[in-house]
């Protein structure tokens, strides 16, 4: 079944809400935790032994969420010097091909990180002393999986709905 515009809109809308919420929790939590660590260190000469590790893990989660958010709005860094020389009519196909390429790469990354998570679960890797590490690593297969899904959807909508929005897509400003 091909994705209809309505479905696409629903998908964009709901995933946007979830993403924004997750990002706010992660980034807000990082600010609070980092500040709390400094306060405790200076006032009570005490710090949470897992605080810095948790911050670094939160960063990984934030990076994956931000990467998915950037894919939603087409804001991943890129160079597109040649695109303007491609005839207008051929551009949807060119973009579709680039999206397929990106989706395929992300799918391989998702698959390989899933293998990593499985192995880590088998070995029983731990973090913070007592929690299984695979829980934190799960963000990688999920994140790359969502990226692959996202670019597949973009490819399909490029092919079936043609060029609708040709907003400048790319260079971060």
């Amino acid at each position: 079944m091909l994705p209809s515009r309505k479905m696409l809109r629903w998908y964009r809308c709901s995933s946007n809400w979830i993403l924004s919420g997750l990002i706010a929790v992660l980034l807000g939590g990082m600010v609070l935790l980092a500040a709390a660590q400094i306060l405790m260190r200076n006032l009570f000469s005490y710090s949470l032994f897992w605080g810095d590790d948790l911050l670094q893990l939160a960063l990984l989660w934030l990076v994956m969420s931000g990467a998915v958010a950037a894919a939603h709005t087409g804001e991943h860094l890129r160079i597109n010097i040649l695109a303007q020389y491609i005839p207008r009519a051929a551009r949807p196909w060119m973009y579709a091909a680039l999206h397929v390429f990106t989706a395929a790469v992300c799918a391989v990354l998702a698959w390989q990180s899933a293998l990593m998570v499985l192995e880590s679960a088998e070995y029983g890797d731990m973090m913070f002393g007592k929690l299984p590490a695979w829980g934190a690593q799960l963000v990688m297969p999920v994140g790359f999986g969502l990226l692959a899904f996202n670019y597949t959807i973009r490819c399909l909508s490029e092919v079936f709905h043609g060029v609708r929005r040709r907003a400048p897509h790319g260079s971060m400003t």
Partner: protein
Amino acid sequence: MTILIMVLAALLGAPLFAIIAYSALANFHGADISLQVVAIEFFRMAEQPFLVAIPLFTLSGFLLAESNAPSRLVRLTQALMGWMPAGLAVVCLITCALFTAFTGGSGVTIIALGALLMPALKEAGYLDSFSLGMVTSAGSLGLLFAPSLPLILYGVVSGESIRDLFLAGIIPGVLMVALLAGYSIWSCRGVKRPLARFSKREALTALREAAWEIPLPMVVLGGIYSGFFAISEAAAVMAVYVIIVEVLVLKEVPISKLPRIMRESSVLIGAILLILGLSLASTNFMIDAGIPQKLLALISQWVSSKFTFILLLLVFLLVLGAILDIFSALVLMVPLVLPVATEFGINPVHLGILFLATMELGYLTPPVGMNLFISSYRFDRPITAVYLSTIPFFLVMLVSVLVIAFWPQLSLWLLA
């Protein structure tokens, strides 16, 4: 084949992260190494303590840009320095440099400050092409000052001390601003314009208005330079301070806007660090495969002196800066260039400053330098007009880049 696909996909506009991941995957596959390595290397990102500073500084920068801090900054510098000949031009350079240092990514400056500075310059009687060139060139000024993101990123990628880099950037950064200011004063010498008098009252009002933001650079930079804060601690202090001041005290950014601002900053963070994480894997492959050594052997065939090498490097970085954003360029090129440059006797900290200074210039290099496009879009001018207007500023900055490149003590003096 791999390289052909990469180059084609890159030039047509595939996301850079996908191209880097593809190169890592293809290389490891070719060498019969499990592709899981790429995932494992990516996960190593969670083991780098300095990286936590990046989202915190980015969030602060986005929040500051969203508040009225830019206009207070302009008013304050104008009150303090507007009486000088070409005072407003100097104000423009200094505010842009400060703003870029604190917001990191280039381009934001032109968008946030351009709307304030362009009309002010016009009103004060500066020629249109002068103002356009000045704002466009100033848009990336300040990358050499702490706590700019590219400096931190260079530290992370090269393994050099970020505090050393922060120190090393000061004199070269001041040199760049000073040369541009000197050029502005010289170029406006013929324009008869009543100089604004220094007004104590206006200065005091501006100071009072910016009272909340003035301690910020002192706390953050003082904390870092004195060694009181680690880089990530300074970033946390800044984020908390900016949130408290702009959201709770001055109430210029409503709480309801916070999630959107957080999302916007994390898009930038995600875009930059995704590339960094994936390039950890591709870099590792290149180092294992001895690419830097091969590169060195190749270059040594043609180039024997340090002088020629630096010249070659400058040309290369200038072209790179014109087509690639500074973050991707750092992550991709530093691991390759650093070992070669060290062989030619270049200090890694000096290389960092040289790298960033040249990339700064790359943003102004036609035909594709990013600042040129942002400016043309933001001020609604034809791109050719922007090209022409930036030429004198480009040349002045080129002089300062050459000085920075061939006078390493300038960067290393404060480290000694």
